[in-house]
């Protein structure tokens, strides 16, 4: 028996463990295995193999039981998931259903999750912009949260590193506040988007409308072909999983890459209960999981552990990793773990009608979605009564309008023969929110899930700054649309709950001072250096760029740091 146990422990011992297989976990696995580390990837959900496990990817609309509409019982059973724009008959199998994984909404919070290999990287909107020092210096300049322990120069090479591999389309726009990257060709703006871009350039200082930068292979390089991916075919059905590997997902890219190295082991159905901390050794020694099928607890051991469970679940894992050294959660000497959670403010939209350009339209589909307006508020100096600013998504479109009046042959003919609509243009707010101690998550002291893990209490809300920003977006975009000559301008605001932006960040923030932060400049837990947290949980502030590219870059940087530290013997 003793021998058997030793063998079993040996089989359960790795160089590295990565908790989570999504956007950032896939990157940790890729970088660690590229460096020859024997790596265990833990995923709480099922495996989703590229192409093979995309059951809807090649279906025509009429091949779906309800031609794409979700049955009402599914909608009513999933009020949270159903609020996500991507939750449909073609993609529902990639979303967590509300009843399966409960959490406690102390305040309304739409927690959108994808529990499977690849996580939400299958479902994301694929927008990818770098941060600049206007973002990394934000908290220090404007006096909120804590100072980021890194600057743009620290992360820039890692943005390049991940961009080359993931494949990012974009133009070199030369905008200091939105640094250029390693780009594949951008998808072009259409006529109305281009007109607006020119108008803004001529009439506004430091405001730009650019082609949206996105993680699609407009023109693949060898490194993408080596991953088994090919050129984006402009299907715009990305939420089904892409049979071409046209957009970046962990499933199409980093996970199969890591597995191909021969150094990775993927273990689905592994709910991480906690990270094991050895008080005597003074370090983390492994991870305790519950097999989601057998409900059996299993321990795995490694020299280094990457926490990439997705922002709030990474907080949950850390909070639930209690030891006599860390009675309040791993690395939580400061008491800030779970606090300073923030998100993105998506609470406003504006639309308008555009006169002219009648001879022109578009043909095919634009996977990038259109244009992007980088943050222009409070960039070079504080100029408003609110802190920070917002980016805007932008797209112009026209479509076939049909007359639906009456019944019979005439109606039937009208359904084929359309009349092309005027142009419409729309834009939505993507605002930075300020991390606060009062926006936090905690472990519920009573309720547990099926695997004995405490439920997460989520208490996150908008504040006055967000409402001022919402108002400013409406004012500024109304003014810009008006001066561009757009008509019937219609702004609307909503009170969508935080979470629906799917950009929750923070809780285990990076910082210089262990007294006020959880992670150091390398994403290591200050007081437990062989644990790295590199997903959204690490974010000190949110800025207003789509965050995934920054998670990828931080993860690649941290993983390579871990490899160096192991070599040097600084972690073991």
């Amino acid at each position, binding site marked *: 028996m003793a021998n058997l146990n030793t063998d079993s422990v040996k089989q359960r011992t790795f160089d590295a463990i990565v908790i989570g297989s999504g956007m950032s976990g896939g990157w940790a696995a890729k970088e660690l295995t590229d460096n020859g580390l024997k790596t265990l990837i833990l995923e709480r959900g099922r495996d989703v193999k590229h192409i093979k496990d995309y059951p809807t990817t090649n*279906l025509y609309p009429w091949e779906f039981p309800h031609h794409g509409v979700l*049955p009402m019982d599914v909608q009513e059973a999933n009020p949270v998931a159903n609020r996500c724009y991507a939750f449909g008959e073609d993609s529902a199998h990639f979303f967590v259903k509300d009843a399966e994984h409960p959490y406690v909404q102390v305040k309304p919070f739409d927690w959108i999750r994808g529990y499977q290999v690849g996580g939400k990287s299958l479902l994301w909107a694929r927008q990818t912009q770098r941060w600049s020092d206007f973002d990394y210096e934000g908290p220090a300049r404007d006096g909120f949260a804590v100072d980021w322990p890194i600057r743009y120069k620290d992360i820039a090479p890692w943005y390049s590193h991940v961009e080359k591999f993931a494949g990012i389309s974009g133009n070199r726009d030369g905008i200091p506040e939105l640094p250029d990257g390693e780009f594949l060709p951008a998808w*072009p703006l259409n006529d109305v988007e281009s007109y607006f871009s020119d108008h803004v350039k001529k009439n506004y200082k430091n405001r730009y409308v650019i082609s949206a930068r996105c993680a699609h292979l407009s023109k693949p390089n060898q490194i993408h072909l080596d991953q088994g991916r090919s050129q984006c075919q402009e299907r715009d059905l990305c939420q089904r999983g892409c049979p071409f590997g046209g957009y970046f997902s962990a499933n199409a890219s980093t996970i199969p890459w890591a597995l191909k190295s021969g150094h990775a082991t993927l273990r689905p159905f592994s709910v991480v209960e906690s990270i094991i901390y050895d008080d005597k050794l003074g370090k983390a020694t492994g991870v305790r999981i519950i097999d989601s099928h057998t409900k059996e607890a299993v321990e795995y051991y490694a020299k280094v552990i990457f926490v990439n469970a997705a922002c709030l679940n990474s907080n949950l894992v850390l909070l639930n990793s209690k030891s006599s050294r860390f009675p309040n959660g791993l690395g939580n000497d400061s008491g800030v773990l779970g606090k300073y959670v923030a998100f993105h403010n998506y609470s406003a939209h504006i639309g308008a009608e555009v006169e002219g350009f009648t001879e*022109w339209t578009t*043909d095919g589909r634009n996977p990038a979605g259109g244009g992007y307006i980088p943050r222009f508020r409070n960039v070079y100096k504080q100029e408003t009564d609110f802190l920070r600013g917002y980016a805007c998504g932008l797209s112009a479109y026209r479509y076939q309008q049909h007359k639906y009046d*009456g*019944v019979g042959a005439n109606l039937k003919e009208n359904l084929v023969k*359309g009349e092309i609509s005027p142009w419409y243009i729309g834009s939505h707010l993507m605002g930075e929110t300020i991390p606060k101690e009062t926006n936090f998550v905690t472990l519920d002291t009573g309720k547990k899930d099926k695997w004995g893990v405490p439920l997460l209490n989520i208490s996150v809300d908008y504040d006055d700054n967000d409402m001022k920003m919402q108002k400013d977006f409406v004012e500024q975009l109304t003014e810009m649309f008006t001066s561009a000559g757009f008509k019937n301008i219609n702004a609307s605001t909503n009170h969508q709950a935080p979470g629906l932006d799917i950009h929750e960040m923070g809780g285990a923030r990076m910082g210089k001072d262990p007294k006020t932060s959880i992670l150091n400049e390398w994403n290591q837990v200050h007081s437990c250096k062989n644990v790295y947290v590199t997903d959204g949980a690490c974010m000190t502030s949110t800025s207003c760029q789509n965050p995934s590219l920054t998670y990828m870059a931080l993860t690649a940087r941290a993983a390579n740091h871990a490899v160096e530290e192991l070599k040097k013997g600084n972690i073991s």
Partner: protein
Amino acid sequence: MDRRTVIKNLALVIGGATLLPSCLKGSGNYIPLKHINITADQEKLVSDICETIIPKTDVPGARELNLHIFVLKMLDDCYKKKDQQAIMKGMDEFNAMVQKKYSKSFSDLDAKGREAVLTGIENGNKPKTGGNKPPARRFRPQKDLQVPPLDAFYWALKQQTIFAYTTSQFFMTKEIVYELVPGRYNAHFPVKNLKTA
């Protein structure tokens, strides 16, 4: 669900429905509906209404395309309970209204008469449109039917029949060309070159 299962399920629904009415006519439920009860007579009514909305012309109509099966499936699966109740109540009111006005059932009317019944309802009470917002890009099932039952019934049937037709394999391959894999984005494209303009 894999591709084969989806097709198999559709074949089951369509096959079952086309075969059973003749042998089970008048004896109650005959297609597998989970939430609403539809009799053979009601199924015939729905089928006749669908055919009136999308009649056979030089291209197939609702009956030939079996649209009413899909319409019933959508009524059964994709509406809230209270909307289904309103629709079913509306169906009864519809029958009573036609009987009162014409001393005949809808199915006994000729094509012109059937059209007149439907356009009469349509012109009587149009659903509200959403202010000065641009119209929906695609015709979608109504979310909430806050109208009298007769109108709820009519508009649900009309919307679902149009949805069934415009998303049918026939329509999407023969009348328009739905592209699963466009493989292109032309940002500057002459309207005159559009196929459907």
